[in-house]
């Protein structure tokens, strides 16, 4: 408890970010109770301006924008968390293990990472979505493909530093098996880097999902994706500006909160960066 309080005092911006993240999680979890209508329920008149009944208006098919924004939090967080957990975990294990094995396994895996990272991320995601077909879960698969090599590269460089340290040498000297060294010494020491990668990439994943849905290659149009809602809003930019305004604010706030939170986690876990990020 005292630790939390000290962190609050040292990282006021991070704490503000944490509050936004908590609200985002609460909205996502409680979406069925909070939303006045269903996200796909198209039963009202289209293009109704914001009013007491529809605080954020209705969209081109007569769906309640407020309900879709609320459900959008659930979709964004689901895509962001699941893709980051799978992608960063797989990439981190891959990076740590190949760094430890070294030799051909390491060089070979680095060339694979090079190949994937030679493509601009959105472009690769676009091609993946074309091959997989549009669905929320396929967006997650595309994101995992995007995130894995980045994590592998970062964790590999962390792992190389750890492998060169004296305690690893002593573990080898007392005759510990490779599996034991990786599981007991290497992976626990990579955890700080792993946590930073997870917290800083959730907002990135959320933005990529929304961007893909925005260009019509992500979630199917009836899904309440903040990005997809903006596309529909651009079609009706003159008659129904609320359709771009509310989802736009929602995603910007979510990303702002996650960035602040992620930054302060990075500051706390990496003493070299403490207070220097401004």
């Amino acid at each position: 408890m005292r630790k939390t309080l000290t962190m609050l005092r040292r990282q006021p911006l991070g704490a503000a970010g944490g509050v936004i993240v908590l609200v985002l999680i609460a909205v996502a979890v409680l979406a069925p109770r909070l939303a006045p209508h269903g996200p796909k329920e198209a039963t009202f008149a289209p293009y109704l301006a914001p009013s007491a009944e529809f605080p954020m208006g209705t969209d081109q098919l007569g769906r309640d924008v407020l309900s879709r924004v609320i459900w959008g939090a659930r979709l964004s967080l689901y895509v962001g968390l699941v893709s980051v957990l799978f992608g960063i975990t797989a990439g981190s294990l891959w990076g740590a293990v190949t760094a430890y094995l070294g030799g051909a396994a390491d060089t070979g895996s680095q060339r694979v990472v090079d190949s994937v990272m030679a493509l601009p991320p959105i472009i690769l995601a676009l091609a993946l979505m074309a091959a997989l077909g549009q669905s929320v879960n396929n967006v997650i698969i595309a994101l995992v493909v995007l995130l894995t090599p980045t994590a592998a590269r970062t964790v590999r460089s962390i792992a190389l530093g750890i492998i060169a340290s004296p305690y690893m040498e002593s573990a080898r000297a007392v005759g510990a098996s490779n599996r034991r060294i990786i599981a007991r010494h290497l992976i626990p020491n990579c955890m700080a880097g792993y946590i930073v990668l997870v917290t800083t990439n959730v907002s990135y994943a959320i933005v990529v999902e929304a961007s893909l849905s925005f260009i019509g290659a992500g979630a199917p149009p009836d899904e309440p994706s903040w990005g997809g809602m903006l596309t529909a809003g651009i079609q009706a930019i003159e008659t129904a500006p609320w359709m771009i305004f509310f989802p736009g604010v929602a995603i910007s706030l979510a990303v702002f909160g996650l960035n602040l939170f992620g930054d302060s986690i990075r500051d706390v876990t990496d003493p070299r960066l403490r207070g220097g990020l401004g």
Partner: protein
Amino acid sequence: MSAYVVRRLLLFVPALVGASMLIFVLMRLVPGDIAEILVYQTGSETSGVQQKQIQRIRQELGLTKPVMVQYLSWMGGAVRGDFGKSYTQRRPVWDILRERFPRSLELPILTLDIALIWAIPLGVLSAVHQNRPLDYLARIASLSGLSIPLFVSGALILYGLVRVFHWIPPLEFVAFTENPLENLKQLIWPALAQAYYISAPITRLTRSQMLEVIRQDYVRTARAKGLAERAVVYRHALRNSLLPVVTFVGWWGGRLLGGLVIREVIFVVPGMGTALVQAVSQRDSPTVQAMVFVMAVVFLVVNLFVDLLYVWLDPRIHYA
């Protein structure tokens, strides 16, 4: 240094081959190939006739051969600048590239220029006024820029243009060489949308570098010998803070390619991004492959250039 350059150049080739293979295979996995789309569009009656037509088109386009053979013949053409013919536009992909590439090159350059013009002075001001109101203002402005996704800022700018100036995206694209003013009028908005976004990290980086440099001994010496504050800040401190900024900007130069797609879609710029989105939806794989290949080459060249620039600018860095 030269060994490092050679090593980097050698790594370039497998990365490019791997990336192009990846895209090639992905485009073969796309459900519903071009033959089916072409045939079903014409709407012939019996399915037996359609099946034959589909088979014929596949044969003509070489889609019946093994993927590896297709890839090698495509790569063989690509290295000579022959990317095949577009399925939907019925002209060589090279022509499409030649038309679209300069437009898509102009947008990132314009974006970087705009971002640098205000991001670096803002970073300097922020550092000089550390922990005073101006600093907080600059930091909040830059952080909010970083949090607004490109398509949101793009949509808001578009809304402002439509609402205030009754502007609609022009249907005809005017090249810079034809009419520079008209051209800039078209590209300035999509450029601004991303300039705000990327100026945020540039401001933050300039600020933190300045804060570090301004405490160095040689800056104190400059002050001690009675130089004007302006000269100290701009001549001595800023010049030495810009090194990481240069690398960062170069790194972003490559990343701007991804942003191109979104900006071109919002502001209806007929560049590489819009062509790519269209080609993906039409299953026009020769065009997709060529666009992605060219983007990967640019991306890799920019990254290589940035790394070399870094070594060249900072004599303290040595690569084995």
